[in-house]
């Protein structure tokens, strides 16, 4: 195989990796802080893309305002879900969170499908990238669509900022304190449940952002998050559940490995991530960056 093709595959892998990273980062934030396994993450990603599409159809909003507005709206939906539904399950087995969000996934997907068919008369819609990002850019060794490079860059920035806020700032320490010892944190005068809702909202907004970014590449479709969420779960297992840095690094790495693997042997494309997961589980059941289960 020639180097040119390999490089293109690496870049394509980074694009997929950007979505894995953003999604598993959101899952890691939500799980690491709140011990909620949000199966709905894929559906919320789809909701981000759908919101961008709907904002464009209804109000003529372009890509840039949607890139800001759609994650905020989806994050808001997430906060409502946390307050209204998920908070009722705190104290029960975490499995119930998984089951509830699974049900919500089925519900959301089919609702969006009904709305798309009923209101917009389409079941799947293309979404065009903004003018400034259309066309290709010549990197000297490879020619690559501008928009895809933008996705890689923005996702990297967002991941780094999120990691920085959680690990290095006062806000991060408040969040960690709220979740590790809510009683003591409350004694310091911090409204823990409000922070919990906020964290959930941020995690969900990350999924919404990924959705808007994905819309011009994969087009908007009610089930676009369905397969992606499963791959993201595998990424989370490989990276180590709840590890912020682990999810970002593993996200990009899995994207690249799967793309390169597909170039070498095409049928393996979709299964490679699960094979990787099985191998990692054999050697390190708690994932590459995860702490052993007892230590969590």
């Amino acid at each position, binding site marked *: 195989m020639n180097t040119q093709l390999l490089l293109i595959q690496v870049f394509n892998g980074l694009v997929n990796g950007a979505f894995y990273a953003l999604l598993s980062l959101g899952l890691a934030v939500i799980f690491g802080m709140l011990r909620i396994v949000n199966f709905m993450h894929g559906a919320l990603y789809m909701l981000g893309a759908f919101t961008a599409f709907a904002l464009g159809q209804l109000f003529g909003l372009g890509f840039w305002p949607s890139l800001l507005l759609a994650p905020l709206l989806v994050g808001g939906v997430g906060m409502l879900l946390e307050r209204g539904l998920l908070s009722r399950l705190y104290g029960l087995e975490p499995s119930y969170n998984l089951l*509830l969000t699974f049900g919500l996934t089925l*519900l959301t997907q089919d609702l969006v499908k009904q709305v798309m068919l009923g209101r917009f008369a389409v079941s799947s819609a293309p979404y065009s990238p903004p003018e400034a990002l259309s066309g290709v850019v010549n990197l000297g060794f490879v020619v690559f669509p501008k928009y895809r490079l933008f996705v890689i860059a923005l996702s990297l920035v967002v991941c780094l900022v999120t990691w920085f806020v959680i690990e290095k700032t006062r806000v991060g320490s408040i969040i960690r304190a709220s979740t590790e010892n809510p009683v003591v944190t409350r004694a310091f005068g911090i409204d823990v449940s409000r922070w919990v809702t906020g964290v959930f909202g941020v995690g969900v907004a990350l999924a919404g952002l990924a959705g808007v970014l994905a819309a011009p590449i994969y087009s908007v479709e009610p089930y676009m998050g369905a397969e992606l969420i499963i791959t993201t*779960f595998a990424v989370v297992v490989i990276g180590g559940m709840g590890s912020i840095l682990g999810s970002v690094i593993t996200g990009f790495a899995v994207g690249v490995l799967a793309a390169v693997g597909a170039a070498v042997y095409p049928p393996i494309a979709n299964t490679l991530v699960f094979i990787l997961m099985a191998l990692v589980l054999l050697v390190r059941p708690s994932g590459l960056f995860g702490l052993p*289960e007892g230590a969590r």
Partner: protein
Amino acid sequence: MSAAVTPTARRDPQRTVRAAWLIGLGVLLLVLPHLIYPVLALDILAWGLFAVAFDLLFGFSGLLSFGHAAFWGTSAYLTAFLLGHGQSVPVALAGGTLGALALAVPVAFLSVRSSGIYFSMITLAFAQMVSFLALQWTDLTGGENGLQGFARPSVLGLDFSNAQVRYYVCLALFALGFAVAYRTVRSPFGQAQQAVRDSENRAQSVGYNPFRFKFTAFLISATLAGLAGSMYTFGHGVVSLEVVNWRTSGEVVMMTLLGGTTTLFGPVIGAGLVLLLRDVLTTANFPVGIMTGLVFVLVVLFFRRGVVGTVQHWLRRR
């Protein structure tokens, strides 16, 4: 353990209740194909056994498998493949079921070392791997088209083109599978299994090896799910990618929850309710996903005991 306890008067009511459930369910299943059309009745049997198999793992071992479609689907495909290659019905059913068991060995080995949510995600990922294989291995599975039009040659003078005949054959298989599940739960093994579920450390400290119990429970559950999957193929005469989809794994969870976990009878009732409801809604042209999702959400939020669990709870309190 329970064997040491003499059946005193205090234990009797529970036994009577259990016998009543057993007889009630038995009679219901015997007359079912005369009440609704036989293929739907057969669906209830297959999904019911699938849900019982799932409950064996979830309810009695505390392991929420989100990938049981892998065993159901593998068996469904293998059964279809064997029938399509001229094998007799008993061979195809056994082949499918054993195929599910064979797949379960490595999957169980890798997944039961983890617990809780981790276990769920790992089983889900393995099931997805099976689903991709089914999509790509078109020689075996027919890919997007699935498999259909395979023969179901008659055995012992039983004409399998008749849906009623197929139903009663499956009822016998269902009874066999249900008996295995019932015996497992009520055996010393089942007691130890539940002890491991309630407190792994305590079970370990009295000398049980948690890994072995979870591993074995997983194999039994996957094998029964396989039997159910081959019943499904046998009943319908078609297999599509739907049998390995992750929504299938989720649906069996919903049926079990709706009926009531750890009740054994519940999953069958749950499967029946979901399939009947779906049958009504499909004819009414109502989107199935919305209904499924809504039932899921309502059951998890407000009805965690399920139908049979609620009735049992109510009977016990009287």
